[in-house]
């Protein structure tokens, strides 16, 4: 399945891109599984993101979610640091 990954703030700077379309297996159907898979396959920034997992937030289709929530084909998955607006 295909998902669209978005990065924001410090994470966007770490990856050097704002978004990326990724083809993943049907079995990689949660933010945690996607991150673990990419960390193993690509290393680099993905491995760094996995290391910092406890201090970052994830959202599926623009709703904050848990690392084990379900991902489907065509979903938008976003990684970002804790919010600091206002």
């Amino acid at each position, binding site marked *: 399945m295909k998902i669209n990954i978005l990065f*924001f*703030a410090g994470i966007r700077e770490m990856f050097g891109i704002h978004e990326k379309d990724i083809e993943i297996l049907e079995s990689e159907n949660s933010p945690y599984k996607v991150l673990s898979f990419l960390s193993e396959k690509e290393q680099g920034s993905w491995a760094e993101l996995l290391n910092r997992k406890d201090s970052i937030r994830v*959202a599926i289709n623009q*709703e904050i979610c848990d690392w084990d929530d379900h991902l489907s084909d065509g979903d938008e998955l976003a990684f970002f*640091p804790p*919010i*600091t*607006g*206002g």
Partner: protein
Amino acid sequence: MTVCIQKELFDVEKIISKLKNGKASIGAVVSFIGYVREYNDHSKKNRLNQMDLEHYPGMTEKALMKIELNAKSRWSLEDVFIVHRVGKLLPSDPIVAVVVASQHRKNAFKACEFIIDFLKTDAPFWKKEISDHGELWVKNRVEDDKKKSSWDIE
């Protein structure tokens, strides 16, 4: 209910006029305006030159609408307007305004504080501070999470 994300400066007087707009049921309007501080550290050694505000288009609007709806479900309100700026800002520039109109002042005061407390933890904005010492993404504050949680027991 209105939510605006914009680069441009906002005019709170105009927002209030728009909310009021001859509605005689409104007896109170409470507004909160947040500004860029010159210093973010107590030592006042590191003066800010610029602040860059990034957000997640689409999710930001949804998150703010959800906060407005939550406020409306807790208090009787006539109208709510939230405006938040993004892009490059300078010290003293206004960042955010929350304007709440209600029949009685208590509801407007409470709802305004509730909205800004939730905005700080639930609406996807990120601040980067630029000073002579370099660039730094602002860290989230534990106090903000505590402030938000305190509404659970209100």
